């Protein structure tokens, strides 16, 4: 009973800490939908895979969101036709490469500035590399969820090739031209954002609220499930089991990466958490936590599955894990 109550307190504390950031992410994502002419933003994105990956990784400076908030933004960017490398780079790097997170890491590791610098450098390197790898795949169908795919401008025609729109399930509206429009939010948003730029402000604000409620509800549901799992594991698995793994240069990195995945802590505050291990864990292990955690964690995987197919998420996960491991192992063996 005591354990249960502890788990519940942990669960609620994760939620109470995360919901403000989720709201901020949802707000920015909705603002992006309604008030920014995304066609211009999309058109400005470089088509070159490497440049695209690099630019995408740095877009986080424009949208300071943590990993609770970056998935909706990445999803929206993809649906607006941003090249995949840009979106993947953004997805992986935005939670780390943004002013708020760099600032909080600086506060936490003031006496070890190399941690702050290396966190940024490694995140940028890993995100750019993975984004470049994803750019090799030109056919998006095996990567993206059908709902996202359908609303990508370039893919609309191929989606209709699958058969008459009316044969699909869902709700429909008769459009202005007499063509049925499927009442699917992803499609609706795809067509809306192209047309909302010159609608009255009142209408925009209504859509903003509507969109925020939708995203808050869906992402909030995922957050609840993720936090519940994270809290349960934290209470059920004794911390010393995870900590006792943390001595050797290899074991400590693996342990910290597992912890990062399990604990699902927001990237804006995770450096404070990592600081509590500063005395017991190697510098490489701390970096592994700070680099890997914002990219992949339990609650994030649920969110990512709303954009990517399971196979693509597994690739993202495996690549991020390996690259983090190799880079931080190098630090452990050759630097510190």
């Amino acid at each position, binding site marked *: 009973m005591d354990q249960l109550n502890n788990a519940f*307190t942990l669960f609620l504390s994760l939620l109470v800490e995360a919901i403000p950031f989720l709201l901020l992410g949802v707000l920015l994502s909705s603002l992006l939908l309604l008030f920014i002419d995304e066609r211009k933003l999309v058109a400005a994105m470089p088509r070159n895979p490497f440049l695209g990956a690099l630019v995408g990784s740095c877009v986080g400076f424009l949208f300071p969101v943590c990993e609770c908030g970056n998935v909706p933004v990445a999803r929206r960017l993809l649906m607006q036709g941003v090249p995949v490398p840009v979106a993947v780079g953004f997805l992986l790097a935005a939670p780390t490469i943004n002013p708020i997170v760099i600032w909080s890491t600086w506060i936490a590791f003031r006496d070890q500035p190399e941690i702050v610098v290396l966190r940024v450098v490694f995140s940028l390197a890993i995100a750019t590399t993975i984004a470049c790898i994803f750019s090799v795949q030109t056919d998006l169908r095996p990567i993206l969820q059908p709902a996202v795919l359908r609303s990508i401008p370039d893919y609309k025609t191929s989606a209709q090739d699958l058969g008459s729109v009316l044969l699909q399930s869902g709700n429909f509206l008769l459009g202005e031209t007499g063509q049925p429009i499927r009442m699917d939010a992803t499609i609706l948003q795809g067509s809306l954002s192209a047309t909302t730029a010159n609608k009255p402000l009142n209408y925009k604000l209504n859509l903003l609220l509507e969109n925020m409620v939708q995203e808050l509800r869906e992402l909030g549901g995922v957050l609840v499930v993720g936090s519940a799992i994270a809290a349960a594991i934290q209470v059920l698995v004794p911390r010393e089991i995870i900590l006792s793994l943390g001595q050797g240069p290899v074991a400590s990195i693996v342990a910290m990466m597992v912890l990062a995945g399990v604990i699902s802590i927001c990237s804006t505050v995770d450096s404070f958490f990592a600081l509590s291990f500063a005395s017991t864990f190697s510098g490489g292990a701390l970096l592994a936590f700070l680099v890997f955690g914002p990219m992949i964690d339990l609650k994030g995987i649920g969110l990512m599955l709303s954009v990517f197919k399971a196979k693509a998420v597994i690739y993202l996960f495996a690549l991020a894990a390996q690259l983090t491991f190799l880079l931080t192992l190098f630090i452990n063996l050759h630097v510190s």
Partner: protein
Amino acid sequence: MSAKSSGFNPQSKKSWGNYPYWALPLLDAIAILAWGILLLKYWFTGKLNLLIHPDYFWLVIVTGVILILMAVIKGTQLFRSVQQRSAARRLGRNIPQPTTMNQHLTLFPPGWSGGLLLATAILGLLITPKVFSSQTAVQRGVTDTVTLTRSQPQAFRSVTRPEARSLIDWVRTIDVYPEPDAYQGQKVKVQGFVVHSSTLPAEYLTLSRFVITCCAADAYPVGLPVKLTQNRDAYPQDTWLEVEGQMITETLEGKRQVVISAKSLTKIPEPKNPYYY
């Protein structure tokens, strides 16, 4: 909610069941309202400090207010649209359903996500968050080092009179300068809860406090051993004590360390703010 679709797609009936069109938006609005109320309730009842670090309070409060505003606006809109429709129906006219977006992400069936959020908020309103106890302290391992607190150097007060130091001040001071003999004979007056460490002899207890850096997920215990003149069973685990005495050096668990030699132990009520930050 969604556009009337019977003409086009008979399947849509299945996914919406027999709910009236306003049921799911209403659920959303109530769930968001409940979360707003929950966040503000934690603030008003002072329970927020059991969950997160005070530095982030303003975030939670602002969020609570925004959530309630969102829910109220949403609810008003919904109420108006229901009124309009019933008025139109009385006049025998059929107006189209409000066209809003639905099925944003398809991870959950309709209604589940909102239901989950609402259920969590209701549980949160019913169950009071608990202060972590000795059980968690033992599980997380009480330490007498606080590397973590280097992030708050302003809290380091080496000039304080020894008896004015709190438990965390002591742990921080010892962390900076660990030689036990340096503190020999200094007066101590600290508050904390009792943990019985299995590695210490029966006449020692560990006086502990939890430190929070961001939220309860990273709460970790710090503590100092206290030497008693009797068996520690007189002071059961989780009892809150104010211990007065002086510092001595002893070798415990094969390690020379600072120990509080207790002169008086007073039972105190659990402090309103049981954690250190």
